[in-house]
């Protein structure tokens, strides 16, 4: 009924977190001086250390969440579960439907948010292994030189 609202809320929070992290990374890379905020600035600062910036990794999560939320919102519109008039969600129009909507949000919605986050954790874990290998390869090359 409105299960996509849970990953939507997570996407909103994570977007704010990503923005704050990117701001911090840019500030650190400029030695405390804040300048124009851009994605590439944060990525550049991380590439000096041979690691992918945390903000970039967080962007992967927000992209996955927003991508899913947009297409699922369309699906809900298709099934008439979202309407363009108040209260916008048909499940919120009467108490009986609201109860089932909340139940769906707490089961399916939470499940969606958890699985997306879990897949992102696995993804970043694999990337972390790649980073370690890259760093090990770089240091080995330095020793040879």
């Amino acid at each position, binding site marked *: 009924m409105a299960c996509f609202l849970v990953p939507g809320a997570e996407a909103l929070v994570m977007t704010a977190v990503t923005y704050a992290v990117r701001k911090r990374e840019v500030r650190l890379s400029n030695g405390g001086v804040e300048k124009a905020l851009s994605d590439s600035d944060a990525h550049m600062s991380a590439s000096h250390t041979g690691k992918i910036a945390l903000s970039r990794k967080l962007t*992967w999560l927000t992209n996955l969440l927003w*991508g*899913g*939320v*947009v*297409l*699922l919102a369309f699906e809900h519109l*298709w099934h008439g579960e979202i309407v363009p008039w108040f209260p916008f969600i048909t499940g919120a129009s009467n108490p009986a439907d609201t109860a089932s909507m909340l139940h769906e949000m707490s089961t*399916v919605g939470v499940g969606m948010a958890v699985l997306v986050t879990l897949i992102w954790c696995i993804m970043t874990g694999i990337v972390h292994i790649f980073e370690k290998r890259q760093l090990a390869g770089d240091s080995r090359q330095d020793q040879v030189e």
Partner: protein
Amino acid sequence: MALLLCVFAAVISTALWYAHGENSTMKIGILCWLFWGASIMWFVDAVFEYIQFGASYFKPSGAEMLNDAFLGLSVIALALVIWIAAVLITDPSGAVKRALFRQNDSENSRTEKEKKTENLK
């Protein structure tokens, strides 16, 4: 059916992204995020429906399948529209900018020619 179509779309877009490389100006990554995000979420939805309805979940009626396929194709169309809009707005290859300026340049040269012919007259 919608989940199946979305997974196919996700796999194809990921393969295209991999084939074109990260420096591609087509921003295929947007499609990958959209389709994978939706596929994961629909998968969870499917699991819960399976728990609720059991094996009958895998035996939908013809009308249900048709409606679901129609939904899946519509979702793919929406994702493609979002993607192409993002490509045209961000214009990573500069093709839109070039096309617009070329048009302006040709318009300017045309008015200059008209002025010259008027002066000659």
